[in-house]
């Protein structure tokens, strides 16, 4: 089944309907076709609440599609795949575990011996610059440091597919730029395929090889843009380049319309 040529992630005609507590049904995504090649960094942008996060939960296997098929390396997703890593928007570090123990959690869950798990965790903590903090508890860290713990505990599992759901949206602007650079460095060594959901167009252009624009909810893919900015990039400087601005304008003309539709709908609901 698994052929080397099949793309890392493939969504075919995917539709996801949620039941709301009141019993009504809510369509989060519809007719969704999306392909992510191996080693690609794909950013998904779209208006708020359009169903970007749903796409990630479908790829991760946390949720099943109502219709259609999600494939990882040509194999349909049934439950959570061990190849997948997921960095959440919210803080998902275990508050009762120390930093080291948090990073060890993944390997330990997967049955790696304690000593080896500890070595691997220490290695990743060193890469995210938190070696000195391994005995701290998450509440003793800053928001940026906690995000680094989350990155380390995801990367330590060596995921071939990395899903990120607005991972840096809770951070302040400077920390966010710094974390984006660090993410690119960490990612560069792994060859993982990344799907990075964000509502920040600048962030998506600075990070990604491809930017996928989604429509107002129920979401589907509107357009895909190739980002031909050379790597390695640094977030703070790349966004000043003329090519960046050009791309930004091009994508915004597509995304802005969807944002406007979402806004108008919101205004109607209020009225």
């Amino acid at each position, binding site marked *: 089944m698994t052929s080397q040529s099949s793309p890392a992630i493939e969504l075919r005609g995917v539709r996801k309907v949620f039941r709301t507590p009141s019993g009504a049904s809510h369509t989060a995504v519809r007719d969704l076709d999306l392909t992510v090649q191996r080693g690609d960094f794909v950013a998904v942008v779209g208006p708020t609440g359009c169903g970007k996060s749903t796409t990630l939960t479908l790829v991760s296997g*946390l949720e099943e599609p109502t219709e259609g098929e999600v494939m990882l390396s040509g194999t349909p997703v049934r439950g*959570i795949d061990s190849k997948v890593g997921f960095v959440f928007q919210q803080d998902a570090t*275990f*508050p*009762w575990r120390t930093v080291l123990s948090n990073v060890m959690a993944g390997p330990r869950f997967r049955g790696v011996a304690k000593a080896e798990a500890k070595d691997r965790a220490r290695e990743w903590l060193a890469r995210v610059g938190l070696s000195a903090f391994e005995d701290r508890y998450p509440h003793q860290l800053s928001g940026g440091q906690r995000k680094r713990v989350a990155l380390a505990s995801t990367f330590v599992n060596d995921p071939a597919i990395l899903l990120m759901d607005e991972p840096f949206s809770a951070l302040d602007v400077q920390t966010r730029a710094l974390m984006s650079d660090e993410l690119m460095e960490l990612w560069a060594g792994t060859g993982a395929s990344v799907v990075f959901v964000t509502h920040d167009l600048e962030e998506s252009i600075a990070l990604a090889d491809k930017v996928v624009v989604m429509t107002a909810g129920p979401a589907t893919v509107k357009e895909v843009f190739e980002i031909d900015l050379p790597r390695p990039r640094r977030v703070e400087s790349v966004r000043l380049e003329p090519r960046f601005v050009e791309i930004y304008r091009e994508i915004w003309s597509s995304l802005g319309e969807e944002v406007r539709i979402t806004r108008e709908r919101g205004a109607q609901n209020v009225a």
Partner: protein
Amino acid sequence: MSPDIRSASSPAAVGRPARSEERARAARRRRGVVLLSRGVLLVLVLGVWEWFSRAKIIDPFNFSMPSRIWDQIQQWTLHGTPQGSLGEQIWYTLYEALLGWVAGVIAGVVLGIALGRVRFLADVMGPYIKVLNALPRIVLAPIFLIWFGLGPASKVASAVVLVFFPVFFNAFQGAREVDRHLIDNARILGARDRQVTFQVVIPAATSWIFTSLHVSFGFALIGAIVGEYIGATKGIGLLVSASQGTFNSAGVYAAMVILAVVALLAEGLLTFLENRLFRWKPAAPEAR
């Protein structure tokens, strides 16, 4: 004890020394005033009670007075109670309460977590547990006396039924309210259902469970005491009922005082354990 006694690691310590010194002194002074006021309040209440009783404003036979209660405690301590030595009575009550508490807590936590995690179990058992909870459980004590006799077993049983429900409901709630992202994250990281239960749900529910442990130890004591009061051969509850039977109001109060001390000591021990266990939690914000 109260939060204002906790050592205040003041951020002012990095500021200018004179000012931080002054702040520390003010904090000490405030603590002193609080302690002193507490003492004054206690002396005042006891003093008024004693005075009213001696002046026959209240009936000393019914209401007794602090000095007599003190005499009673002393007499029990030094010469033993009519039912045997005081230590033995305290030991019996504590033993029954502790046994009932441990059994009730274990049953409550296990069932609470199980029902919190397994939807099917919760749907099946839910209504029955609600019905049982609606029952005033203290009325079960006479039944237990009939079933298990005058010995400790009947008191343990009534302590268990009192302890079980608050612990169960808290554990259940705790297991249900675990942050969904923590569970999702654990599953993505590779945790199986069992690992999610033991390494995510249970640690996350511990603060819920511990809240109920404080309350429920009090319930365990109530269960033991009421059981003893209804019929026993040993225990503080028996002291109360024996004192009541001989119209010895000082005896009833004395037993109450002893009970309060025992309960406070147990509470202190629990708080100590809790603080050890919850080092991962951010410190409670200082009371102002």
